[in-house]
């Protein structure tokens, strides 16, 4: 099986993967004074401005604590988008080494996803602690569902990233298209508003958006403090499985001749 080979080679080349991820993280903030804190400042600032604009200027109400709501939706969204953006360059940027030495191509999109995932986890943990300390967030049993939601988010992102990285080698418009689509996606995913606020006639559009079903898990757990329902879990698992299988299928089909198109 192809997939078994790829998983085996990911394991065999795990040292390369670790090095790629650590190089990515180190280089992003090297020589900046605040260093890694930037990755924390960014979400705090974004969540702050969204909250101010959307609750005081334009009056959006989600019926819950808005800071918590935006935190729950925007943070996983941000990870997803950063992963997709990183995917475009993942293989192309490593052309020089790929032309000389055999390396499994899947290493590169996976390393991008992992690096962004590290950022996400650090942010999530730090913001979580802050929100608990300022008592915006009451720890509840629902949080037990969070690790599962995180795993689904990671796998969903990895599936899409792997496909995007391969497709972008063939059609370089892909990364530009992703930028535009994600801009739309931001408004087509309930992040700054609640799905309930959408008029019924438009709702199917939002429910067809697979990302909605991933983000919703986080919102239910963190913002509502509830353990997601069987239906919510079911949809989350379904879209993750589709992204993972579909993404991998695209990658597997394109991988063999990828080297000739770099």
């Amino acid at each position, binding site marked *: 099986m192809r997939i078994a080979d790829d998983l085996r080679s990911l394991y065999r080349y795990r040292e390369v993967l670790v090095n790629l991820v650590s190089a990515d993280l180190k280089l992003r903030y090297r020589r900046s004074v605040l260093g890694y804190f930037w990755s924390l400042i960014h979400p705090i600032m974004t969540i702050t401005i969204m909250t101010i604009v959307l609750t005081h200027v334009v009056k959006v109400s989600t019926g819950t604590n808005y800071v918590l709501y935006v935190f729950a939706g925007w943070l996983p969204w941000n990870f997803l988008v950063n992963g997709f953006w990183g995917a475009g360059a993942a293989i192309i940027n490593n052309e020089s080494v790929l*032309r000389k030495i*055999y390396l499994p191509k899947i290493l590169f999109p996976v390393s991008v996803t992992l690096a962004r995932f590290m950022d996400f986890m650090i942010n999530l943990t730090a913001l979580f602690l802050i929100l608990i300390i300022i008592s915006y967030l009451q720890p509840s049993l629902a949080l037990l569902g969070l690790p599962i939601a995180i795993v689904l988010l990671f796998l969903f992102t990895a599936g899409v990233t792997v496909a995007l990285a391969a497709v972008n080698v063939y*059609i370089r418009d892909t990364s530009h298209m992703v930028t535009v689509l994600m801009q739309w996606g931001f408004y087509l995913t309930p992040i700054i508003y609640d799905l309930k606020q959408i008029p019924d006639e438009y709702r199917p559009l939002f429910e067809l958006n697979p990302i909605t079903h991933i983000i919703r898990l986080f919102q239910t757990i963190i913002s509502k403090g509830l353990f997601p329902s069987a239906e919510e879990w079911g949809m989350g698992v379904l879209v993750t499985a589709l992204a993972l299988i579909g993404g991998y299928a695209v990658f597997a089909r394109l991988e063999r001749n990828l080297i000739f198109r770099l």
Partner: protein
Amino acid sequence: MSEKSHIRIRNVNLDFTVYSNRSLSLREVILNPFMARGAQKQSFSAVNDVTFNIEHGERVALIGANGAGKSSLLKIIAGVYPPTSGTLDIRGKITPLIEMGAGFHPELTGRENLFLNGAILGFSRREMQDRLPDIIGFSEIPLHFIDTSIKYYSSGMQTRLAFSLAMELAPEIVIFDEIFAAGDAHFVDKASSRMEQLITAAHIMILVTHDLKLARRFASRCLWLQKGAIIKDGPAAEVLPEYERTMLQTQP
């Protein structure tokens, strides 16, 4: 390491498709699917029905004019290019020393690059940690430089670092493409005796070169390629003089 290595290549072909502009833009795909699939593509055969075996202990030089397909063949053996058709049966771990420092990242420091490239070449972090003092020592890179981004290194320093890392390998199958000039005369001297050790220890060596002195020194067997096909295969002592004569004749 005790197991015997071999390379068996059967009817291997490699066709390159040349695109006038390698990546199709979306516009081309949408507006003119026929153009995109037809007129812009041209195909040529880089490796043409090649069959040979290399057994444990052999030292082989691939020779031939520019564009004869030597490097393409080497890249097929290294697994970089998947062959268009034909089969490969390779036993033994291949270490390509095809252009050293290919995996060096200019922003990373010398030390970080050693770890990254060591991993690419198959060393774990711990193995690298053990070897690091030797590698840095051999490269003669001043210690205060090793934690500086390698973009600030001179090209000689970069090559020396890459070479020193490569020489730490204990490859079963070692393949070279046009050996690099590594630094000043003193270093080249030191490097070539180190390389000899590496080649002696390897199960199989394959070398692509235009330098016939080098081929004579390291290779016992020569494969002569022309237009992607093997036109002569035999002991270096026989093939090399003939090749030399032909090359001199064809030159104006």
